[in-house]
């Protein structure tokens, strides 16, 4: 399995209410072991998946959002968030989890994983992919 493909995980749904977000993250974590070129895209209500300060106590579900912080350690460090989706929901970059990774090409300098992109830029990125998982 030497061929490297571009995989994008598309996350469009709110973190709770359905299981898609949690089960998408499970695929990302398993998939990281395959050393492919991986990116994540968050748009529509999917942007809420990586919102800060999630509290699920009152709905009796597990808050799995801390797991996103581990993605950098799995070499999953291209996280695209659609600008228009943030704006439509009154969110800014400050409302999102502080997702970082260490760049091994630059002496392990800590860098931001999240890149806010326009709908058009995201469409172009999706166009470049070999495999898209949309959950």
């Amino acid at each position, binding site marked *: *399995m030497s*061929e490297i*493909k571009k*995989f994008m995980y598309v996350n469009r749904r709110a973190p709770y209410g359905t*299981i*898609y977000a949690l*089960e998408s993250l*499970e*695929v990302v974590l*398993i*998939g990281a*072991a*395959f050393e*492919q070129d991986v990116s994540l895209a968050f748009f529509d209500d999917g942007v809420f998946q990586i919102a800060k300060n999630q509290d699920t106590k009152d709905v009796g579900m597990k808050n799995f959002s801390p797991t996103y912080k581990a993605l950098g350690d799995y070499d999953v460090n291209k996280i695209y968030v659609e600008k228009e989706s943030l704006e439509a929901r009154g969110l800014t970059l400050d409302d999102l989890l502080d997702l970082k990774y260490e760049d091994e090409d630059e002496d392990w300098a800590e860098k931001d994983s999240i890149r806010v992109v326009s709908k058009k830029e995201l469409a172009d990125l999706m166009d470049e992919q*070999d*495999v*898209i*998982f*949309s*959950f």
Partner: protein
Amino acid sequence: MKFSILVNEGPYTHQASDSAYRFTKAALDKGHEIFRVFFYHDGVNNGTRFTVPPQDDRNLQKLWSELSEKHNLDMVVCIAAAQRRGIMDENEAKRQGIDGNNIAPGFRISGLGQLIEAGIQADRLVSFGD
């Protein structure tokens, strides 16, 4: 062309499994190769032999099982998703101490790595869901 198929919804509530079945069958009839069909999320519910739909309706599980037998189709049910939803094969039932199993013929339970591999090996991965 070599396809992989991802089915993300269970039978009947959504049309996804019907569409996936028809796509898979049409691709095979045209001489294409199906590397694997992977069942995820509620899609794992396509793999229980305990569904008994009304006799005048289609039986999706049987359709998949027959297609698998005819074409030696690899049909994989995600283990993590299956455990949440009560889809068991004999080994898994024994491991979990459950008093029975319901996996349908032609389906096998395995890990998510099989989905990633399906994406790597196929020319196209086609998803069926909402």
